[in-house]
């Protein structure tokens, strides 16, 4: 479905990604783990067109989307939930969701999507008229995911969904990610620092270290890998 090959991205003189290649198959959950500054967020932002790569190629459903502007990439069916719950804090929950369907015109389909989002996150329905900035951290994350779903993506990228959220809510959010993947057949690329959780729900994983892939394999295998255990899984 998505194929990234030899992607290089730099911020000025500093190289953030040095030739990354990865693949996401239809209907799968793939995770990208790694420490701070490894280039996880950069990878996602380059795929969704927010950053321009220096070289390399991004192919989505057979089409080269490397140099398309962000709004055209969204229109192709790639949803991006950015890091740090970037919701529109001055708009209401309902308006945030409406913004997620910004590029779509079919009202009936949008309404169906809304019902689906309320089905997964009933909390959002209760808070519909509330300004998004007043939601709790977990609710904001739900809203950010809900907003991305409103774009009817075929492929969803999530950037650190567990960041700054009450531990109790983290497992709920991850259950919902699995549910979305299963029900809607949406392929997921998950970026996480919480490697344990990420490996638990994903089928395949890539490990990123200072701009390069250091390891990849089936998530179940990686969980048993002693090197990885020492570095990311807490012994």
């Amino acid at each position: 479905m998505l194929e990234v090959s030899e992607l290089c991205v730099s911020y000025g003189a500093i190289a953030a990604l040095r030739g990354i290649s990865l693949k996401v198959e239809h209907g799968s959950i793939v995770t990208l783990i790694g420490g701070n500054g490894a280039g996880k967020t950069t990878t996602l932002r380059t795929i969704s067109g927010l950053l321009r790569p220096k070289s390399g190629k991004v192919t989505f459903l057979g089409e080269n989307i490397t140099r398309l502007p962000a709004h055209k990439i969204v229109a192709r069916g790639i949803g991006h939930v950015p890091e740090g719950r970037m919701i529109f804090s001055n708009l209401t929950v309902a308006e945030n969701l409406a913004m997620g369907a910004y590029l779509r015109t079919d009202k009936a389909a949008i309404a169906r999507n809304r019902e689906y989002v309320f089905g997964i996150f009933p909390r959002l329905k209760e808070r519909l008229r509330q300004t998004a900035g007043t939601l709790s951290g977990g609710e904001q994350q739900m809203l950010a995911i809900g907003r991305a779903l409103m774009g009817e993506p075929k492929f969803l990228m999530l950037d650190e969904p567990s960041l700054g959220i009450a531990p109790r809510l983290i497992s709920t959010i991850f259950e919902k990610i699995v549910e979305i993947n299963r029900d809607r057949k949406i392929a997921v690329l998950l970026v996480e620092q919480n490697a344990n959780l990420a490996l638990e729900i994903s089928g395949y994983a890539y490990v990123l270290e200072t701009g390069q892939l250091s390891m990849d394999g089936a998530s179940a295998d990686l969980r048993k890998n002693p090197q990885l255990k020492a570095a990311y899984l807490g012994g």
Partner: protein
Amino acid sequence: MPRPLLALLAAILVAFGVSYFSDRIDPYYLDVMTGVGINIILAVSLNLVNGYTGQFSLGHAGFMSVGAYLSAAITLLLGPRLLGGAGGSALQQGLLFLGALIVGGLGAALAGLAVGIPSLRLKGDYLALVTLGFGEIIRVIFQNVEALGGALGLNGIPNYTTVFWVYSFAALTVYTVVCLVRSTYGRGFIATHDDEIASEAVGLNTTRYKIVAFVVGAFFAGVAGGLYGHFKLTITPTGFDFTKSIEIVVMVILGGMGNTIGVILAAILLTILPEVLRSVEQYRMIMYALLLIVLMLVRPKGLFNFDYLGIAARLRRKFRPARE
């Protein structure tokens, strides 16, 4: 008819009514009212750029001067030719003035487009500097073009500006900004302000939103410039320097970024305040500055930044008890 449009028409009718009886109103109050109206147009239009869309522009006086010069040139040069030596009927004058204001606004909008396309890729302080530079360049150009009067400016501009024109355009500005921001399309302005990366991630073309805000804001600044020129009857380049831009920015900040009602109140206050403080002339600017500092310390989000719709809803509930 939709309610906002009804409100717009009502405001224009009231403006016409006040204008009709303007002979009986003290000319001093009439002048203050006109000044207030022009500042409302300037502040509300700048609020679309600085408040709702979150782009810090310091070039509003520059766009205002483009409109002022363009519309004054039209009434001065074309007026006598079209209307004859006698000055024509009131209707003819009105139509000429309307045309001049709109051309002035469009000229300013064009300038907004020319400045906006290259500079709106910049953010925060950088954008502020570019727009500041633009305002100064425009001023220096007007100062040095002899055909536009050079440093002396343009004189003998016909006295066309009335309360009717000012408040009709003020109402139109408020109407346009409110409808734009409330529309599905317009939420993109607020989204761009709240988070640019998230906006792009849901598929908004944020650059286009910024340019639209900039161009619409510049258009109304140009119209305000035209009204100002035909009210003061003389325009000089120094009247549109960056202190004027700052004055408008202060109105927006004081009113509360992205709060149209608050910004209108701030425009009224900041126009009337210097008049009230006229008796202590020599200390006026000091008091004005102090007042601003205190206000920013006490209410950093704007003096008039309240949830007006919430207050209205609560009042309605209070006076109309539930029928269950």
